[in-house]
Structures are given as C-alpha cells and as structure tokens.
C-alpha cells in the first residue's frame, strides 16, 4: 500500500476533522473565487459607467465648444414673443410665423468678429390634425395643430461639421449633407404618421421628397417631435418663401467677441431677439463638473472596494492557513505514537513527512472541490455580502442630474458575476497550496519526532 493510499485511508477515517477543514477551506476558497469575480464585475460595471461618463463629458465639451460662440437671432415678433408685439420692418407673413430677409444674414456676416452665419427657415405645415385636450375642471376641448414643421438648413458641409445644425441620433438611413435636394430627414413620429420607411416618398407642401434618414428627437416639445429637416432652398421653394428665413445662428470667431457682436446686432436690428448661450454654457460647465466629480467618486469607491477585497482575501488566507495548521498539528500530536511506530519499523523522515503532507493536500483538494461548488453557487451573494458597493453617485446619494444627454447611463447596473475558468483554477490552486502550506510544518514536525520519544507518548 503506497503513501497515497494510506493518506486517503487516514483522511477518510477522521471524518469530522476533515469536514471542519474542508468547510473552512471551502469557504475561504469560495471567498477567493467570489471576491475577485465581484471585483472584476464591479470594475467592468464601473469601467462601462466611466466610459459613458467620459463620453458625456466629451460630448458636453463639444457642445460647449460649439455653442460658446453662438448668437441666436430671431425676429422678436416671432413665436417666442407675445403675439401683441408689432411686427418689425423686415418681418412679414402671419402673426405666428414671421420671416426675415436672407440679406440680413449677409449683413451680419460682414460684422467684424463674425465667423459664420447659418440660416434656417422653419415653417409649420398647413395641414392640421385635431387633438383633444383636457383643461381645468376636467373640461375637454379640441384644438387643431400642424401635422409637421419643416426646418430648412443651409447644408454647407463646414456648418454641418462645425455646428449643431442637424440632429445627431439617426436611427435609420443617414443625415443630410451638402448638395442634398428634395430629400428629408424626419423624426420617427413623422415617418409613422406618413407610413413611410427609409427611402420612402412623402409629400410635403405638395412636393414629393425622399426620406433619407430617420432620427429620434432629443426634445419632447411637439414641434421637435414632428420635425422634418431639408435643404433651406427646398424649404423656401415649397413654402413660396424664396429669399426668406426665420432664424439666424451667428457664430463668433472667439467666445470673447460674443457679447460685443450681440450688442452690435441688437443696435443695428432692434427688432431682432438676440440670445447668447452664456447661461446654457455655465449650466453645461456645471454639469460637466458634476460628472467629473461623480467619476472621481466612482473611481475612489472602486479603489476602496478593491482595498477591502484585498484585506478580506488576506484574512481568509491567514484564517484558513491557521485552521489547517492547527488541525494538522493536532492530528500530528494525536498520532505521535503512530509516527514513532512508523519510524521504528523503518520509515524515513521523508516517508513520514510525505504521508502527513499528502493528507493535508488531500483534504485541501476535497476542500477545493467543495469551495468550487460553494463559489460557483454563492459567488454573487458572497461578493455582494463581502464587498462594499461601488458608489457611482455623490456622497449624498443623490444622482447629480436628471436632465442628461443619455439618461440610460444612470440606470444602476445590477452586478453580474462572471466566473472565468482562470479565476476558478487559480482559487483552486490557492486552496490546495494553502492546505499544503498549512500541513507542511506539522508534517515536518512529525518527521523530526524522535521515534523513541514518540513510542513513549501516550
């Protein structure tokens, strides 16, 4: 009978003790499996969130860069001012929709410090749909609303590239580009209304257009959700507003020039309502700062979690080694006489040591298997029990913002633990190594026992 067989016999006859070691080692191993897996899961979650945050921060930066030099000009008799206000000299048309001459754009472009002037023509459809509204005291009434709004844009490729003149979240097809004619980019609400898909034909203001792209509106206003983008010249043609525009986006060469240019425009064209984006800019910068703080909090939280995990693993390893050590020491002590007999009948120190070490390793192997099972079954529970949750939000527990570019980012992801074979194998190896290390000293001690002393031991 070889050393292995004897070790197996010994392990099997000390069931309670083996069970104790197996449970202790098994749990340690389960901890060793769960914690790194939990950490990895947290890292992945935090990485993905951080990535999203970075994207948001980057897009905000882009937005800030794009809008920092923007001066928006509309006729003050337009939709944004009270209807009673007298129309300006250059305005004409209905009370709701007033238009400017394109020449105003050319004049503003000649102001010093102005880089670009992007012209828009926005007009609601003549077709209307009837909607039922509920008013105060439960009264309901019918109102007629335009089916759609067209927004003509100067499709100059440098404008498209440099400024936010076209929607970005295209869900099908493509956006508009320089040279496009008789094509539209519209919201999914509108394509649903028209019953068309990408590349389908729609009739707008009596003219046929091809839908080249569909997008999801970011705003929730009625105008925004039923918008059709097209070339400004197409818009002017179909609405019989040749040479007219409804809005001018003036871009300054430099952010510092914005206020000066706005003053010049206001002085020269008193009827124009001039808006700069200072407020929005500040708001964006604040939001960016908050995102940055949140990102840092998440990173700090992750670092804290990793530190805790490290401590827990160290404690688990030390505790397990001690349990194995004490148990094996007790076993060696209990079997002192047996060691004496083995040595008396001709066993070498190495024989004795290998038998005891092998017993330790066998117990560890069993514990390893138990640990694997516990680890696989209970990894998510154990890791959530043992690891502090990564705090992706500010210390007050409040989410920093509600109005986000991509609200989905703030959905707290549920931690899913992925147990890769490498982690399992490593933990298994670690448990066996711990068992071996824990039994090494007792085995060595056993081998060094004087046979004479051991035989006298009762």
């Amino acid at each position: 009978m070889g050393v292995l067989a004897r070790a197996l016999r010994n392990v099997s006859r000390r069931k309670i003790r083996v069970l104790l070691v197996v449970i202790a080692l098994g749990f340690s191993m389960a901890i060793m499996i769960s914690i790194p897996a939990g950490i990895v899961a947290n890292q992945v979650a935090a990485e993905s969130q951080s990535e999203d945050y970075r994207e948001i921060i980057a897009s905000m930066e882009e937005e800030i860069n794009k809008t920092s030099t923007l001066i928006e000009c509309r006729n003050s008799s337009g939709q944004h001012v009270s209807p009673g206000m007298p129309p300006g000299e250059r305005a004409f048309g209905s009370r709701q929709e007033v238009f400017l001459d394109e020449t105003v754009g050319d004049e503003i472009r000649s102001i010093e410090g102005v880089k670009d002037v992007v012209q828009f023509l926005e007009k609601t459809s003549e077709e209307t749909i009837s909607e039922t509204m509920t008013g105060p005291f439960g009264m309901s009434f019918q109102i007629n609303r335009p089916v759609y709004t067209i927004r003509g844009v100067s499709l100059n490729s440098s404008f498209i590239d440099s400024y936010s003149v076209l929607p970005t979240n295209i869900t099908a097809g493509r956006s508009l580009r320089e040279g496009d004619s008789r094509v539209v980019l519209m919201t999914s609400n509108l394509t649903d209304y028209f019953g068309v898909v990408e590349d389908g034909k729609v009739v707008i203001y009596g003219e046929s257009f091809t839908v080249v792209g569909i997008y999801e509106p970011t705003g929730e206003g009625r105008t925004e959700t039923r918008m059709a983008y097209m070339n400004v010249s197409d818009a002017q043609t179909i609405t019989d507003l040749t040479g007219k525009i409804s809005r001018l986006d003036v871009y300054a060469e430099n952010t510092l020039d914005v206020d000066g240019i706005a003053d010049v425009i206001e002085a020269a064209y008193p009827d124009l309502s001039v808006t700069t984006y200072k407020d929005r800019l500040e708001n964006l910068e604040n939001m960016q700062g908050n995102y940055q703080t949140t990102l840092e909090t998440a990173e700090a939280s992750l670092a804290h979690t990793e530190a805790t995990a490290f401590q827990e693993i160290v404690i688990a390893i030390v505790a397990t080694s001690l349990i194995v050590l004490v148990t094996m020491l007790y076993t060696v002590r209990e079997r002192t006489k047996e060691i004496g007999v083995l040595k008396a009948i001709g066993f070498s120190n190495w024989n004795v040591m290998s038998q005891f070490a092998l017993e330790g390793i066998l117990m560890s192997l069993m514990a390893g298997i138990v640990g694997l099972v516990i680890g696989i079954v209970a990894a998510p529970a154990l890791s959530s029990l043992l690891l502090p949750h990564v705090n992706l939000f500010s210390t007050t527990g409040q989410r920093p913002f509600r109005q986000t570019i991509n609200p989905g980012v703030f959905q707290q992801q549920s931690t899913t633990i992925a147990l890769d074979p490498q982690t399992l194998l490593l933990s298994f190896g670690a448990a066996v190594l711990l068992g071996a290390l824990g039994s090494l000293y007792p085995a060595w001690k056993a081998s060094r026992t004087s046979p004479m002393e051991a035989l006298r031991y009762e």
Partner: protein
Amino acid sequence: MSELVLETEKLDKVYELGRRKIRALSDVNLQVKKGDFISIMGPSGSGKTTLLNILGCLDKPTLGKVILDGVDITNVPEKKLYKIRRDKVGFIFQTFNLMPYLSAIENVELPMEGTKKSKDERRKKASELLKTVGLSGRETHRPSRLSAGEQQRVAIARALANDPAIVLADEPTGNLDQKTKYEIIRLLGKLNIGQGTTVIMVTHDSLIAAHSGKMLFLSDGKLLAKEKKGTLVTEKALRCPHCGRKLPEDAEYCLRCGKKL
C-alpha cells in the same frame, strides 16, 4: 560456534535532566548469537527499555559501541539509521501498535515499503507470514476486529517482514491474558527454533522469561553476571518453569507442582 548478530561493548547511557544526570546503562557488554532467544529481565527503571532502544537504533549510547550484523550502528548518522531499522531489526511492542486504518496484511506489508520488493512479492510474503503466525484467512481484518492475541501475532508477522537479523520484543505479553501470553511466547519460541529467528525480549515476567533460551538480568543499568538457562517452548510442549513438567497447551497451573504458570 554461531556467528555474532549483535554485540555491545561498554555501553553507557546517561540522561541529563536539568542538572541531574541519570545513568540508565552502565558498562553493558552483551553478545547475541544468531538463533539466540534472550530475555532481559529486571525491575522497572532498571534500563531494560533503554537497552532495547539502543539495540534497535532508536537511541544512541552516550559511550560504547553497538555492532549489529557487522555494522557499528553507533556511528551511523540518523538519516541512514532508518534503513538499518527497516532491514535488520524487527520490533514487537507491548501495545502491538498496529495501524488501525490498515488491514492485517497491509500492516505486515508496511515495513516492506521502500524495499526493492515488488507489490506482489510484498503481498505474498505478508500472506506467508500471517500463515506462519496462524492468521490465515484473517488477512483483510482490521486490528479492531482482531483479539489482543491476534493483534500481537500480526505485530510479530510485521516484525519479521524484512527477515531482520534480530527481533526486539518489548514486553510482548504485557497486555495479554494468561492463555494468550503462552500462545505468543510459544509462537516466538517456534519462530526461534523453527526458523532460527534471533529474539531479544524484555520482560519483567519471570514465568514468560523462563521460556526463552537465556535470561539476563539488568539492575540499575548494569547487566548482572548471573545468567539462567530457560526452557524453550516448542509447539508440541509447554513446560512448567518451576519443575519442568510438560503441560497441556491451555494449562494455567502446573499439574505436578500446582504452581501458577
């Protein structure tokens, strides 16, 4: 003249307990020939077990020499002593000291582990030895399923596993009842006479010692000059140590002199 298997020259063993020095053996000179069956007697603390431990390479003398089968074991380093214990010495203990987790045959095979014998050879040898000690058919039984006498028989078989030059028995009948004692001593006698096994037995039981070939006496670590010739027990006969009358195997009292055996 038979060859010497074991010889000691001026053996001294001194234990140091703190500042106290205890002389356990003093100037012990012993010569054991091949085929001898010697019992060493003496009261508790006389140094019997110390002498046996030194002869069995479990302990080293403070002074003197031990030559076992031609090898001076006093100078053999500890790392190599296990081979001498394995190949040249067979131990029989008072408390049998069998491995409780091994069967009878596995216990007998144990000392053969590490020798050049193949697995089959080990098994065959162990089986023969168990047959010799009268335990045929009990090979697979664990010690817990064997009587005390049977356990000691397994221990004797184990001691003979590597055909040792000498078998050292430390109170081999100390834990046995009267009847079993005689069974065991008869078995040792049979092995000694039948197979020429050299046996040194330590006992304080004079009745048992009387069944060896020669009795030596130890007192305060010194081997006394007086030697007594014993009556070797054979398989066929058991003799009364007091009057020499042949007795039946299971006798507890002498049929002639009436003394307790």
